């Protein structure tokens, strides 16, 4: 089909999930092209020669890489159910928090779950500060996007179920209700959205998958 939409993805990736959630929010039909990251397809290497990573969105034969770039493209191409706000200042804020999550939160949250001992304590402490900062963006709002899910909510989707599963496995609790009431409420509200329920990977499958990964020494 001329305007076929394909998402090169892996089922357990929170990055390709962002793309799928955005497309689902807009009611856009798409085909999933599952990748084996240990044996990348020639198509993936053709469509993302610079980074050789998922996700890649292919629309009408044209490839786009990098999840935040893809989200903006999706919003500009399919206008229903906008992901970004209309007002330029609010758009700037949404972009600010999305890049904050990617640049300052993801890695430290991951490391807090996979490291041990003193290093883990340091990571937990730092991750805690970043989450505290992130929480300020939720002040007075149900979702980061306001009354409905938006750009930042999609980017933060990593918190559920991925971070929940990882915390359980590492036997740590980063997102305690008493310390992060807004973020914890956000997790519940986000998780109860139909579109999220219908698109997210099954928790049990993620538990089984993460159990096969060895924690770094």
């Amino acid at each position, binding site marked *: 089909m001329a305007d076929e939409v394909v998402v090169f993805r892996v089922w357990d990736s929170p990055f390709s999930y962002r793309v799928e959630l955005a497309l689902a929010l807009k009611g856009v039909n798409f085909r999933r092209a599952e990748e084996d990251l240990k044996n990348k397809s020639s198509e993936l290497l053709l469509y993302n020669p610079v980074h050789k990573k998922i996700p890649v969105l292919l629309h009408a034969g044209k490839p786009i890489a990098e999840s*935040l770039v893809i989200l903006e493209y999706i919003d500009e191409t399919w206008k229903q159910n906008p992901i970004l706000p209309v007002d330029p200042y609010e758009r*700037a804020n949404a*972009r600010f928090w999305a890049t904050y999550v990617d640049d300052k939160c993801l890695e430290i949250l991951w490391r807090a779950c996979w490291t041990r001992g003193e290093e883990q304590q340091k990571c937990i402490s730092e991750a805690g500060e970043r989450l505290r900062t992130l929480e300020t963006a939720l002040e007075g709002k149900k979702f980061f996007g306001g009354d409905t899910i938006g750009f930042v909510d999609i980017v933060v989707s990593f918190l559920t179920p991925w971070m929940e599963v990882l915390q359980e496995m590492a036997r740590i609790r980063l997102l305690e209700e008493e310390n992060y009431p807004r973020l914890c409420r956000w997790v519940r509200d986000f998780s109860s959205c139909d579109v999220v329920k219908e698109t997210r990977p099954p928790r049990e499958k993620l538990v089984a998958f993460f159990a096969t990964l060895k924690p770094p020494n």
Partner: protein
Amino acid sequence: MAESEDVKVLGAWMSPFVMRARIALNLKKVDYEFIAETMHPKSELLLKSNPVYKKIPVLFHKGNPICESLIIVQYIDETWTSVHPILPADPYDRAIARFWAAYIDDTWNPEVRKYSMANTDEERAVVAEKTFAGVQLLEEAFQTCGKGGNWFGGDALGYLDIALGSYLAWIRVTEKMSGLKILDGDKFPQLTAWADRFCAEEAVKGVMPETDKLLEFAAAMIARMKAASSAK
């Protein structure tokens, strides 16, 4: 000239990121006040307006602070819409411009910066190879994005021109300090010609630091960084 809507840029002369905000405002013909940041120590204004990163540039418009240079450039483009569009009109072209801007900031520039901190010839050779591989990609991107025009943006200076062009003074400083010709006219003819064109642009001339002044600043900064890292 657009009427003053209380537009200010908090920044410093040597920062490529601050340059981006100023070039964008210049292209839009927006008057603004430039507030020179004290840096050491950081001003109250900076700490209050950018509490998360505590970094320049900060754009102030109607009393609101906007942070992060590429976010600022997009804000400027989306606010002053009747003059000189900065991002391309087509969503796919916009995506490609955003992709390469992210590549420059997240992948290429961090690599180039490693050169001055490298201690051995071997380390320098690795950095040089990666630097040139990146420039080759950008030379090709210029042709794809520019579609035969003088700019990454085609017929007019655009987002990706600003993203890469803001680094030119620092690239020239790195070339002088390292003896490495990064923008080699033989290997990368399009980019080399583009670089001269960029620096000659009205919107750029007044905010591009002089190479010698920047060289002096860079030498002092690198000496400080090396002293700090060897003191650890």
